[in-house]
Every structure is written in structure tokens, then in C-alpha cells.
């Protein structure tokens, strides 16, 4: 199976290792991965701020970049939702581009979704290097991708050496919302503080967050408030587990 990585601009700059780990996991499960280097940003900031006219050329650009891809996989739920939900919508008045947008939407997957739905990856033999307590924040855009909060929680909970503790109000937004976080810091700040409190209450060492934006927000608040847990993408945990497997020196499983 051949996968094109849609790394997203935030992951590219702020969490490059997450991108590398996604590649590592996909390859472990038998995919070949390429990175179309012409990709920039999906235009979500433009779209969310009502600059629909400006978002269109960015969408067209990304549609072209991934034109020849078999599967497009992204580590970030919100960017993925931009491809899947909003691109077709942007071209409602242009059937030709709408069709191309729909074609991209049909082959785009969020990382966990791709692992579970398409690869049907068997993670039952994977085991973290050391006993770890995990909890999981459900990022909002997974809603429009029809990914329920239980999916990633189950996936993480089934790893070896893991104690999984459910997060209270896991489905409540972390308060990121792109420019919302900077424009309305009183509201956004109160929402993210609530998330930190709930996550700290679980006593888990790691909060899984599969979205670059949410991770910046929750991670930043975590650091500001001095919370003890760390924020990680599920790909980071899976990579640690894969590298932990006996005889795993980086060879590709078949």
C-alpha cells in the first residue's frame, strides 16, 4: 500500500518527530510512504476566519499536490477534516473542482483511522518499553471524520505495559480553535485550564493528543500551569512500542 504523507504545516515546524513517527509506524505495517514536498498549508486558518475566497487557491494547490496519491494520511485530525469536509464545500459552484476535491476527500485518512480501518493493523503484540499510564483527549474534528472517542482509546489501551485511564469530558474541546485561542484568551484559557485539570486528575503520565493544534494548546497550558503529564501523539507511543519489539532494529515487517 502506498501512502502520501500530508504532514501539515504545524507538525512540519513544531512537532517534526511526530511526522517521522507516523512514517515509521506506516512502514512497520507494510506501507511505502512518500512526502510530496510541494505541500504547504491546507488553508484552514483562512477558511475558519471566513476568508473563503482566499482558502480556495490553497485548496486547489493541495488537491494538485496529492493528485496522484493512492492514500493520503495525516497525523492531524483538523487538517484532515479540512480536506474531507470543507474542500468539497469550497467548490460547490465549480463541479470540476468539486469532483477533484471529492476525490481527494475519498482517499484522505486521519492516522488512527487509517491504521484501524484500512490497514486493520494488529497492535496486540506491541508493548511499550516501560509501564506507562495513559489517557486520551478526543480532538473535535474527529467528529466530522466519524471517529468516535472509543477508537483511539481502545487502540492505546490494548498496548502492552499500558494502564489506560479514561479522561473525564474527553470529547470537550481543548479551547484551541486556531486564531480563537489568541483572539479570545479569557475564554480559550478557561477551557484549556479545565482540560489540564481533568487530565491531571487522571494521574496519567501521558495525555494522547492526535492533533498538532490541540497539542500546542494543551502542551503550552500544561507547561504554563506546571502539570505533571506529558502530551504525546499516538504515533510517538506506537513507535516506541515498535522499537521495543524483540529483534526490532528497524526492519520492515511483512
Amino acid at each position: 500500500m502506498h501512502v502520501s504523507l500530508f504532514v501539515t504545516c504545524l507538525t512540519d515546524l513544531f512537532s517534526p518527530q511526530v511526522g517521522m513517527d507516523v512514517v515509521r509506524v506506516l512502514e512497520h505495517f507494510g506501507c511505502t510512504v512518500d512526502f510530496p514536498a510541494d505541500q504547504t498549508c491546507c488553508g484552514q486558518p483562512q477558511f475558519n476566519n471566513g476568508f473563503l475566497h482566499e482558502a480556495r487557491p490553497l485548496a486547489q494547490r493541495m488537491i494538485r499536490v496529492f493528485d496522484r496519491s493512492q492514500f493520503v494520511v495525516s497525523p492531524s485530525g483538523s487538517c484532515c477534516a479540512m480536506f474531507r469536509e470543507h474542500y468539497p464545500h469550497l467548490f460547490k459552484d465549480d463541479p470540476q473542482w468539486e469532483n477533484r476535491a471529492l476525490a481527494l476527500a475519498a482517499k484522505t485518512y486521519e492516522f488512527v483511522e487509517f491504521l484501524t480501518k484500512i490497514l486493520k493493523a494488529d497492535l496486540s503484540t506491541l508493548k511499550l518499553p516501560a509501564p506507562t499510564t495513559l489517557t486520551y483527549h478526543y480532538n473535535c474534528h474527529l467528529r466530522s471524520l466519524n471517529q468516535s472517542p472509543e477508537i483511539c482509546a481502545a487502540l492505546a489501551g490494548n498496548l502492552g505495559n499500558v494502564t489506560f485511564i479514561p479522561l473525564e469530558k474527553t470529547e470537550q474541546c481543548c479551547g484551541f480553535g486556531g486564531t480563537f485561542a489568541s483572539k479570545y484568551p479569557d475564554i480559550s484559557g478557561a477551557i484549556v485550564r479545565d482540560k489540564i485539570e481533568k487530565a491531571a486528575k487522571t494521574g496519567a503520565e501521558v495525555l494522547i493528543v492526535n492533533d498538532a493544534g490541540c497539542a500546542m494548546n494543551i502542551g503550552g497550558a500544561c507547561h504554563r500551569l506546571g502539570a505533571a503529564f506529558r502530551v504525546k501523539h499516538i504515533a510517538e507511543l506506537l513507535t516506541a512500542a515498535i522499537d521495543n519489539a524483540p529483534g526490532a532494529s528497524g526492519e520492515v515487517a511483512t
Partner: protein
Amino acid sequence: MTAPAIENHKSKENQSSTRHALPIFSSDFMGDARRASVNEALHAATENACVKKDAGRRALLPRDFANPDGLRTLAGNIKAHTLDHLDFYVEQLEANILKNGGQVHFAATAEEANQLIVQIAQQNQCKLIVKSKSMVSEETELNRSLIDAGLTPIETDLGELIVQIANDHPSHIVMPVMHMRRKQIGEIFAKFFNVPFTDEPQALAEMARVYLRDTFNKADMGISGVNFAVAETGSIVICTNEGNGRMCTSRPRVHVALMGMEKIIPRFADLSVFLKLLARSASAATLTQYTNIITGPKRPGEFDGPDQFHLIIMDNGRSRILASDYRDTLRCIRCGACLNTCPVYRTVGGHAYGSVYPGPIGALLTPLFNGLEHHEHLPQATSLCGACYEACPVKINIPEMLVLMRRDLKSVGKLKFSQRVLFRLWTIALSSKMLYLLGQKFQKLTLRHAIHSDAGWIKKLPGPAKGWTQARDFPKPPAKTFRQLWQERKPRP
């Protein structure tokens, strides 16, 4: 206990010369939101009620229905169909109400609706008016008009009664006093009923009950809202939990029902869809305690019911919304599910939204009714998390319409020129790989060498990013981008 008078309570607001379609209780969204976000008591009250109802809804729908999503789709489609053919159904509703012996009045504005009700009261020598809970009467500030005309309206829903006594405003569509704590209600009642303080819920409810029983017996007019108006049969449906709605609509001589014109559903059978969804979405109950289906006034030979039944069908800006990109907002059945699930509502409470309809649906309705230029923050002060869309029983795509409304900020002159330039430039930078890489390099350089920072985190950012670091730290980018790591990567053996 003597029945106290409420007459002296007049609303302070909206007596200025320019009347908005919806009353504006506050225009200081930023200030209200800031104060609310650090108000622990408000947060505890709101959070507790919202999370409970929201969790209840989430649990109930899949427990009771094999395909709750399909049910929501159906409800949304029925509403969409009705709105697409509203002219037809309004006429059908009118004809059937008349056939049932009722009277129908049309009001173009809130003021007209209020005047119609005052006239009906005056023509029938009605003085004491009992009201069941109705958001649309909050929209028209009906009580103010009634009091101005020398009439005495008494709210009979417990929450609304508390709001009325306290001269406050509802902070939630379904739970009007969600912002109050029990102690506060005890104090309000002690003062109003002139009794020793208690905050025992049963004692408080009993006080209200005794007072309201007496009022029901004396009242000569009842006013209700309308949850659904069935065009096919000319029936109106009122869903309440305290039985006060039934008292208001059966005991007094005259019953006036006030509805926004979007409340119509075509067929009686459609009710089965909406009744399944309304209580489950609103209060995590399978059905409201009282579901009244009212088809005309008392008929000859019947003992109960009013002599007259009047239905007022109000526009107040709805036909303008119907013709806009925002038609779907008129599907709303006022269940409050979007409020309960919304992280922003849970944080700032209902009053911060400044008008009668709070929460995600209010963030759309208030600017739609009153003009976006008066409420520029409402569509912007949301994270677009989409919980409201997921909760909505009639599938109003609220986040999508909030984005459209952000688009419209430009045309009402509420978007700073600097913002427009910034987004233009940003778009240009993202349109070329070279410029993108340049921008990336620049960001990396400036952020990695930012002042006010420690290892890995920036404490203070300038300009438009100032807000970010008001609430949390900003991460420094690592030394290498993904692109660089990818290029340096040795192919696996």
C-alpha cells in the same frame, strides 16, 4: 401567605428609541466573557447542569433508538421541507385553526405581537395574566408591554417565576435560572414572599406552588408559547415539565399562544419524530412531563378549556433569515442541547451572549435578528469544535454557518483592514513552496531566539499572538523541520 405583587417590575433595557428585533441586555461581550470566565460560582452552576444534561442526551439517544442519527436527519429534513414551503403551511395552519374555532393573527414585528396581545386582553377585560414558559415572549419582551398597558403578567414556570421576581433574564433556553445557586433563590423567595430564609428545594417549590395555584384561579388570560404547530390539524403543542402550561391554557377564559412562524410542522405524524427528540435533547428525559396538544377553544358541552383561543404567528425578521444563507437556523426547536454541550457556553454562561438566545444557536440568531454589526464577537468567539452540530436534533450545521458569518464580517465593516492584509499576505505565502519555506525559516529563527522564553517554551509573544501567551506558553520549534528530517533520512534496509 399573601400573594405579593410583581407589577412594579419593569424592564430597564431597550427603552431607547431604536428597537432591535431582539432585546440587547449587554453590549460588552469581551467584558462579560472575561468576568464570567473567572466566576467560580457561575462556572460550577453551569458546568454541573450542562454536563449532566449533555451526558444524559448522549446516553439516551443510542439507548432508545437503533439509528439516532437517522432520526435527527429525518427531523432536520421535515423542518427543511417545511421552511421551503412555509407559505403553504402557514396558510394551511391558519385555515385549520379557524376551522377549529380559534382566531389567527399575524405580527410582522415583536412590537406588533405585543400590541395584539394587549388588545386581546383589553377587549376581553382581562387583567391578571398567567404565562407559561416561552422564549419567543422573551424575544418580544412581552411582559414589559403588558405591564406598560396596566396588565399583570405572572410567569408560572418555576424558573421563569424566579427570573421575573429577581428582575433578571433567563440564561438558558430550557433552564432559565441555571446561573443561580440554591441559596440565591432562597434569598429571592424570602424577600418576595416575606418569609424566613430557606434553601430547601421542596419548601421553595411549595411556596411557588401555593402562590401559583391562587394565581391560576384568579387569572383571566393565559399566554403560552408553541413548541410545534401542526398545520394538518390546526393543533398547537406545548411541552412542559411542571404542569403550569396546562393550567395556563385551560383555566383562564382566554388563551393566547404566541409563536415564531418557523414553529410549524406539516403533519400530526411528524410530531412523533420531534417529541422523541425534544425531551431527550433538552433534558435527557424520554418525554416532557406534560405534552399538551391543543386544538381550538372549549367546544359546546365541554367543561374545561378557554372560551377563546388566539394564535399569533410572528415574523420579526424570520422571513429575512428565511431568504438568506442562514435558513437552516430556523429549524431550531429550542431544546438547548447545543448550549449544554458547548465549551464556550459552559465557560461564559448565558448572559454573556447579551440577548435572549444564548449558546451556539444564539451566536447565530442574535446577529441574524439584530444585525452582525451589533454582535461582531458572537460568531468569532467559538473554537468551531462542532459539538453543537453533533448535538443538534434537527442537524443545524452551526459551525459551518459561524464560518459564513465570519465571512460576512467584511461586508458590515467589522473586519480590521490590518486583518485583511494579514490574511492576504498569509495566503500568498502559502501559495508557493519557496515563500512557504522562507516563512518557515523566518518563524523558526524568530521563535527559537525569542526573548521571554526558557528551554523549549516562549512566555510572551507580541502583537496578535499576545493572547496566546496570556493563557499558555508557546512552543519553540525544534532545530529541524520535518522536511529536513525527511531529507536526511537514510532509506531503511
